[in-house]
């Protein structure tokens, strides 16, 4: 253990750490204050003598109630959750299979395919959404969650594949070889031996995919028409901003509540996430 002097510890650790925490979390603190602040206080300009943006003496739940009752927020929350879970599952399965194939199997064109999958990551969504709207309608998926559940994997699969490929590479080949000597098929060895060992990596990829899918905006904006099909980002932006009037209290409340489910997922799995990344990063 390296010994450091007290002041050094403060200077090199506590101070920077505190600064990082302040920088990272201040906006959330501020969002929370705004979400619970009554409307009257929201409109105090910063120059006003009695402006107190950092705290409020009259916290109120009116924005929470307003959000829940006057908008379809709970529905959006459910939609986003459902779409995120299904897209993540689809991407994980595709990513697990593809990652294993690219990491473990030798076949012609494996390099080309690997590169091709990454190249698709480069195609921006702002380019694709118009032709995609055509395809989505042709498949009669417009305004249904499936429009998103099938298009989100397009940007989730490449990353999942990369992550899992890296992770699979770190798993010693001996494991499969032993299993096959014992009579298992390749497929069986993959599913029953490799995948369980790779659970941290799989969880890691899953969490990341879940976050990205929760974050998506433009496809949801264009493919989803009715208010009860919208996702949280689109719903909050389209229903809580009526041109002249931004309903800031409800907006911030929506922003906070919209991040809670993902935050909870992370809080349970962050250790797995880090371990999973560790494994794939080693490779």
């Amino acid at each position, binding site marked *: 253990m390296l010994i450091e002097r007290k002041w050094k510890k403060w200077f090199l650790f506590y101070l920077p750490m505190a600064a990082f925490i302040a920088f990272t979390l201040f906006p959330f603190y501020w969002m929370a204050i705004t979400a619970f602040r009554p409307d009257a206080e929201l409109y105090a300009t*910063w120059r006003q003598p009695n402006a107190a943006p950092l705290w409020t003496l009259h916290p109120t739940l009116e924005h929470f109630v307003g959000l829940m009752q006057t908008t379809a927020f709970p529905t959006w929350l459910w939609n986003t959750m459902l779409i995120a879970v299904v897209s993540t599952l689809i991407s994980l399965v595709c990513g697990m299979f*593809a990652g294993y194939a690219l990491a473990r199997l030798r076949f012609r064109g494996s390099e080309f395919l690997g590169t091709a999958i990454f190249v698709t990551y480069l195609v921006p969504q702002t380019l694709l959404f118009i032709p995609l709207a055509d395809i989505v309608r042709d498949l009669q998926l417009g305004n249904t969650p499936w429009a998103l559940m099938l298009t989100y994997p397009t940007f989730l699969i490449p990353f999942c594949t990369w992550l899992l490929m890296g992770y699979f590479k770190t798993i010693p080949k001996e494991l499969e070889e032993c299993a096959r000597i014992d009579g298992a098929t*390749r*497929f069986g060895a993959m599913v029953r031996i490799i995948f369980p060992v790779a659970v941290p990596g799989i969880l890691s990829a899953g969490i990341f995919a879940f976050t990205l899918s929760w974050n998506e905006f433009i496809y949801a904006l264009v493919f989803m028409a009715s208010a009860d099909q919208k996702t949280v980002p689109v719903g909050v932006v389209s229903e809580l901003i009526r041109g002249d009037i931004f309903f800031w209290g409800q907006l911030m409340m929506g922003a906070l509540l919209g991040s809670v489910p993902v935050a909870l997922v992370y809080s349970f799995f962050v250790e797995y996430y880090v371990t999973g990344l560790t494994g794939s990063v*080693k490779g």
Partner: protein
Amino acid sequence: MGGGRAAQDLHLSTERARVSRLTRALESEKLLATALLAPATAILLLFIAYPFVMALWFSLTSIRVGDAGEFVGLANFSKAIHDTIFRMAFENTVFYTFWATIFKLVLGMWLALLLNRHFRFKRIIRASMLLPFIIPTVLSAFAWRWMFDPTFSVMNWMLYHAGLITDRMPFLSSGDWAMWCAVAVNTWRGMPFFAITLLAGLQTISPDLHEAAALDGAGAWHRFWHVTWPLLLPVTLVVVVFSVIQTFSDFQLIYVLTGGGPANSTHLIATYAYQIGVGSGLLGEGAALSLFMFPVLFAVVWVQLRFLKRMDNA
């Protein structure tokens, strides 16, 4: 009785034969690989490759909303190159990506080094550091916009009461300021991802290596630069590349924060392409604008893959 049993046996053995034929087929690496890669490839072909080709075709025609237009070759690309707003958008995108990536890397690395130690509340702090990355971009961008608002900015309030300013800072009202504000918000958002991924990398470095270096008399900075950094290079590279791709094609943040203003001075390629393609209905031109992103991104990824391959072989 015997005959029934024989029939059963025959039935079972044909079943087994059928099953084993399938499994035998999947024993072949090639076939298994094809089967495994099929779902991913199908989705990517249908929902990326095909629309991409369509978009490529759009960019070569004068297509507008509701009017298929006609083939015009590279006219849309030429118009873009001569468009002063587009040139500014391109510069902005490079500026934005460059600075945001540097800040994210430096701050992310620093944070990762800090988080790599043992301290009280480590778990909860680690988890909370991820919050900016978790919250949907659109929503956090709104919060930042409100924080920078000329009339209501909490930043102005804090700086004013700390005696640092007498009149407000033009956070989003001046083109230059607004670009830096966007960089700041992007850094805020992306730094956790860097930090956590680099942290994962740090944890694979055995502490023995550091001890050995320390025993040899190396200081903290020296240890970092000669032990930590080289070992982290592969991870760093991958994370940087992913981040560059995301940042270069960013849309949501600028769309919400400034809408491309003031005076078209904070447009990125993606937001400008959207404004032209969708706002004016000039789909062909919008597609051409978007496609300008592609070569740059492609080059970045290509460089990364070459670098990684070199390291793999080393």
